[in-house]
């Protein structure tokens, strides 16, 4: 369990979020908070609204009701660009890598916000543009090191196997040096070894960098193992909110989802 870095300070606070698409109500009155340094899991059956919740947090969906407080700033709706600027990064359920570019380039796009050199220096590839490229390349390389993907750094990501693509996507998110990392089913479709690797990376990120993580995951053993606290959603409503132990024993949750308690 990752506990060393959890603090009491609240990094993200979500209050009364309701989201509808036409007639479909994806989220109803969801409220929870995320403390700085913790690993927070969001679980629930398919269609429970987990991805939609994540999309609201980083501004891709705009909820009709409720507000989001991040780093002390409260808004009714996040804008994706602001979210990225303020230090929120994420991965996606169906990998959203830039298939025409290499692993390294994909990860470098994660640094995009931090690179400022204007077009003229870029054209000459001198001065500030060149320094920036090298500087941010170093950061990208550290991420590549961390995720152990050196040998595929020049490969176009479209050619990589699924598991590696998911890792590269994590790399792109990490490259932004985010304060809040949103992971949407980072281990979906992976075999046991790959899952263990991914767990290790997630724990290391939380441990070494102190990054706060919100994680959607279906694998119960993973959730119970690595998360500090858990939110359970079902049909867009909140069922439970607490530590894994507490949630595991919650009758509503068992009824809706677990069926059998996991050890």
């Amino acid at each position, binding site marked *: 369990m990752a506990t060393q870095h959890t603090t009491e300070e609240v990094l993200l606070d979500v209050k009364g979020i309701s989201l509808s698409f036409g007639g479909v109500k994806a989220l109803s009155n969801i409220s929870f908070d995320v403390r700085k340094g913790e690993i927070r899991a969001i679980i629930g059956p398919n269609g429970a609204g987990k991805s939609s919740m994540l999309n609201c947090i*980083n*501004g*891709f969906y705009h909820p009709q009701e409720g507000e989001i407080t991040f780093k002390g700033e409260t808004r009714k709706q996040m804008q*994706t*660009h602001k*979210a*990225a*600027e303020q230090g929120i*990064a*994420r991965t*996606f359920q169906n990998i*959203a*890598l*830039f*298939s*025409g*570019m290499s692993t390294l*380039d994909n990860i*470098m*796009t*994660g640094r*995009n*916000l931090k*690179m400022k*050199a204007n*077009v003229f220096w*870029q*054209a*000459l*590839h001198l001065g500030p*543009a*060149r320094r*920036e*490229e*090298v500087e941010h*390349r*170093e950061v990208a*390389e550290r991420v590549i090191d961390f995720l152990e993907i050196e040998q595929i750094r020049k490969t176009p990501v479209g050619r990589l196997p699924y598991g590696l693509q998911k890792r590269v996507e994590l790399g*792109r*998110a990490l490259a*932004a040096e985010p304060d809040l990392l949103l992971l949407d089913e980072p281990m979906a479709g992976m075999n046991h070894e790959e899952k263990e690797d991914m767990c290790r990376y997630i724990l290391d990120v939380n441990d070494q960098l102190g990054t706060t993580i919100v994680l959607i995951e279906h694998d119960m053993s993973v959730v119970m193992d690595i998360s500090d606290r858990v939110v359970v959603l079902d049909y867009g409503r909140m069922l439970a909110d607490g530590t894994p132990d507490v949630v595991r024993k919650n009758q509503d949750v068992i009824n809706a989802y677990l069926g059998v308690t996991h050890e």
Partner: protein
Amino acid sequence: MFYREAGQFKTTYKADQGIFPIIQDRWFIAIMLVISLVVIPYFANEYWFQAVIIPLYIYAIAAIGLNILTGYAGQVSLGTGAFMAIGAYATYKLCTAFPDLNILIVFVMSGLFSAGVGIIFGIPSLRIKGFYLAVATLAAQFFILWLFNKVGWFYNNNPSGTITAPPREVLGIMITGPNALAITRYYVVLSFLVVFALAAKNIVRGRIGRSWMAIRDMDIAAEIIGIEPLKTKLMAFAISSFYCGVAGALYIFCWLGSAETEAFDINLSFLILFMIIVGGLGSIMGSIMGAAFITLLPIFLTNFPPMIGIQIASDLAKHLEEIIFGVLIVFFLIVEPHGLARLWQIVKEKLRQWPFPY
């Protein structure tokens, strides 16, 4: 075996980011430069310059421009002809208004005009994607040419409706106009091509290029990680139109000498589009290769049959050319959507092992 990178280790990121990190590539570029700077001028005659090589270089510049917009940034454009026209007409008007201004500066300024208009027609790209955007660029194509046709001011109310390049010199050498030697114009165009190609290559492998490709590949994800779609797209339109504008200026001033709006019509837009499809979308080198291929093809088609003893009527030849163009487009799209550039890469990869394939 000739193309192995083994043993070429880079010890700094700077070195690895060099434009041609592999030595064999550098040799290739060096050889190409020598050929274009020395060998071609030595052997070529007036006909070859005028009919083939100068237009080839000019098309290459336009192709790079279009590739930036369509190949790298993923914004389909059928308005290349119009943007080239803006460059040409802007140069014409600037020359009239400022007869003492250095023509090279005028070329660059007209590129800027073109960039400005490009940005305006690029604004719809935030809301519109794919084919719809192609239609927006068609609007630009038809409207701009109509404007240049109708409003006499653009061609100084010349009764024939054409614009003609006035003679201009740089450092005492005639660059435009009837007295400019083919070889002078050749070097001017070549210089522009080299500088522009280099700049483009630098831009596409840096932050801006990556943001273009991100928008092209998955614009939603790009937006989520902080890449601003509108700024990125407008930058693509601006730079692309700049290149096309300068190409258009060179088109009239260093090649045709004079023209009407027909020279920039939709067929030109298609021509450049074919160049980047055949050459390879998303490749600077490919743009140049595509331009070469498409420019040389008609020459080949007109000269080859007589060489093997077949005479083809010029009418028929033109239609055959059309058919072959079409077939080639379809062929490339099926077999190698990434064009000649990718084929070139494959050749290089094979050279890694030749002559020992195992």
